[in-house]
């Protein structure tokens, strides 16, 4: 069964390190997303799993077998490309039947396989069309059907939805998860879209500059990120810079740069430590007392208003208010803000500064 294990895998191009010593296990049947900003090495990583490029160091195991020297075509996997890469000279059915064809299966079996997988993606009626005649979403579905038609239990998706329109992208990602779960396929999905990663994965592997920053379930990464980069990259968050003023088990006091105070429920650091508090916008509320701030912009988001403010502590704070309350706020208005102290997460203040710690490159 296709469990994928990476052991100390690196890829270097001269002095440039694209992937730096990654070890990772993807369990049988698991849907894992490799998430990261562009240039973080995630595509290089998935290409090394597929055998399209060879690691400079380390080993790749698929189903317990060392893949060193094993050609792409012998790795028994399905691969969906970002640029779709349907063969332009073959029609939809022939594209899907390509895998059984190059394995010299009987003609009836080729036709049956094409039919089966096109039915699965609900495109049976497009069978005799050429790829160029389909729209982007349909093309990528055919390409998925083609990859599934290998019958392989390991599916690699290389930014499969990036080339598509926003709407199509949303619809397709649910289809994607539903299909692979239905077929019990181990899936590695590469994307730079954190929303996409959140909605499809069992587990997210977050990469930055060739290394794994953090991995865990979408919920873990969102509610309990282990570092500032994760907190910032997955979802949105506000950062407050300050020091631990008082540490207690139940409630710790943080002093911000202007001397104002903030309470947080969990602070693992000692008194006097320079820290950064991360609070997501949905856990910041306007109140009658608290941090004093001035509204700098108000944006209508459909189901809520996004209000950006600058606190006296010089921290920029964003919060969301219900649609009905929108008329209560104006640019330049002064407000007091409260944070949900249980939702606040405390990180040690990075020596290189916040901007550097959360930068994408």
């Amino acid at each position, binding site marked *: 069964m296709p469990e994928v294990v990476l052991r100390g895998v690196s890829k270097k191009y001269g002095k440039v390190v694209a992937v730096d010593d990654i070890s990772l296990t993807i369990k049988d049947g698991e849907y894992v997303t490799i998430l990261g900003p562009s240039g973080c090495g995630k595509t290089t990583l998935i290409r090394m799993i597929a055998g399209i490029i060879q690691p400079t160091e380390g080993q790749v195991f698929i189903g317990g077998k060392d893949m060193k020297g094993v050609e792409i075509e012998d790795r*028994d996997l399905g691969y969906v490309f970002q640029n779709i890469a349907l063969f332009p000279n073959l029609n939809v059915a022939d594209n899907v039947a390509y895998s059984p064809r190059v394995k010299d299966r009987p003609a009836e079996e080729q036709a049956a396989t094409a039919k089966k997988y096109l039915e699965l993606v609900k495109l049976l009626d497009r069978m005799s069309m050429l790829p160029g005649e389909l729209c982007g979403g349909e093309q990528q579905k055919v390409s998925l059907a083609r990859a599934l038609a290998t019958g392989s239990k390991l599916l690699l998706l290389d930014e499969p939805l990036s080339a598509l329109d926003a709407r199509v992208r949303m619809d397709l990602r649910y289809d994607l998860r539903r299909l692979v779960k239905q077929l019990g396929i181990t899936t590695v999905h590469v994307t730079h879209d954190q929303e996409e990663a959140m909605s499809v994965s069992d587990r997210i592997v977050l990469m930055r500059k060739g290394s794994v920053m953090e991995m865990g379930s979408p919920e873990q990464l969102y509610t309990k990120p282990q570092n500032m980069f994760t907190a910032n990259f997955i979802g949105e968050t506000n950062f407050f810079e300050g020091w631990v003023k008082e540490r207690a088990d139940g409630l710790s006091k943080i002093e911000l740069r202007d001397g104002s105070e903030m309470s947080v429920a969990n602070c693992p650091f000692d008194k006097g430590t320079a820290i950064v508090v991360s609070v997501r916008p949905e856990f910041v509320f306007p109140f009658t007392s608290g941090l004093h701030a001035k509204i700098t912009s108000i944006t209508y988001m459909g189901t809520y208003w996004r209000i950006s403010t600058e606190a006296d502590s010089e921290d920029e704070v964003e919060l969301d208010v219900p649609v009905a309350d929108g008329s209560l706020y104006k640019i330049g208005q002064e407000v007091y803000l409260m944070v949900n102290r249980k939702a606040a997460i405390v990180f040690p203040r990075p020596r290189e500064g916040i901007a550097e710690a959360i930068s994408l490159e």
Partner: protein
Amino acid sequence: MTKVNRLAEGRKKTLLDLVSGRRFRTGWKSFIILFFIIFVILPTVWILSYVVTDWSSIQTEVFDKPEIMQVITDAIIASFEIAIIVTVIDIIVGLPMAWIMVRKEFKGKQYLDTLIDMPLAVPTAALGFSCAIFWAVTPDKVNAPDFSLAFITSPFMLIILLHVVFSYPYMVRSLSAILEQIDQTYETAGRTLGASKFTAARTITLPLFRAGLVTGIILCLARSLSETGGTMIALSTMANAGTFETGPTIIGKWKALLSTNPDLAAPLAFVSILLIVISLVLLVVLKLMVMKVRLPAGKVWPKWERTLSRNWVPKLKDGSAIIFLFIFVLIPSFFIFSYVLVSPSAITEWGTFWNALIYSFIIAGIVTAIDIVLGVPMALYIARGHSLKFPQFLDVLVNVPLIVPTAALGYSLGVFWKGVPGIGSLDFVLIIMAHVAFTYPLVVRNVAGAVEEIDPSYEETARTLGAKPLQAFRRVLYPMIKASILAGAIMAFTRSLGETGATLAVVSSANTAPVYIVNLIKADQFYLAAMACIVLIIVSYIFMLALRYVTKRRTD
């Protein structure tokens, strides 16, 4: 502003206004198209009218004379057999080489890249001699070096070996150009689906290749069918060439005899007609066939194809491709240098050669100038009007002189202008017109290709800013296509410099450098011929370097 200045300003304006006026532009456009039709297309295919006007003489001089008929059919069949065999060889050996050039990264790739183009620097006249002394058994008087292979006795074989040399670079270049445009992801996708490298290349890349293959095939066929000078020289150099002739050599030979034997006019016309018609038909059939016919790519033999993709097989294939390049292309091209090193010096006089070379230069220069002045507007018209019917039609027509064998083209052109008083007797003018006919498409193709890639919105922007069409061209478009014009010009110049067939067919006593070399060989002046070849190689090589420099800058 002084009065004089204002006056000058005023005059300049009227001139610009004049050339920008609708009427002038329509007139200029019509002139360009008329020039193309009267000076390029019509003379090229004029000889076809012979069928209608003088069928009776073809009847009496060709069909009623079995020995003439025999010579003609033998020559034509030999020409097409050679062209087809050469093209097939080029495809078989060119494909792996194109693959190496596009898909492989290795040290020294740029040297291999230069080596492939090297034969293009050698004029075919020089190639003919060089190949003959390398491959063929030659008579003692030639004094071929002892280490030459000297085992080919069949003229048919020798000409095939010769034509492979100069058509090979065209094939490799056409194939690489198209291969570069095929996304490698297709092959990778094929491999993730379980296809071995060979299977993926065969079932996906090759079918996408067809358009490029047609271009390569047409270029090779046309070059092989046209080649005259090198073929004549190779046949004269080898021992016992017998009565072997190709279409173009028979035209050259008969044209020289025409003044003493006017009866040859009909056979000459007939050979030319056959060459033109069969070439054009072949072109059309090829285009249709390659687009319509699907390669039998259905069945896959995974086990066999896997073996072909792995271990020693790809290495053997790449190795053979490179060995072929050296043994069949490069060494025969430059073997001539060894000849002048080992043979005793026997220079009698250089004067005639320098005269011939200068004569060739003057012709090539004038031809290139005409090509640019009248070809660039044509290219603009074709490129900017490619959605309209007429420019599309012209686009197809422009290729005709490239396909028609130059010897046939030359003879046809000679017949066309013979009737026109004042022109028919001017050898110099006739040679220039013949050379314009087959070099003009080179400039038009190059420039039209470049213009098509430039967004017309640049010129439109200039026009909205108040520029007249001529100003928009000079200030906006011209700087962008300058390199392509230059590239086209250099190609036209070198083609004109190396051309033998058309020259001999239009004026048999012409004295251009390649014709001079042919005559030297026929007069057994091998050493002088070889030296002349080397001078021609060096001159052409300098021009090729210039071409590379220009085109490199264009792509950077």
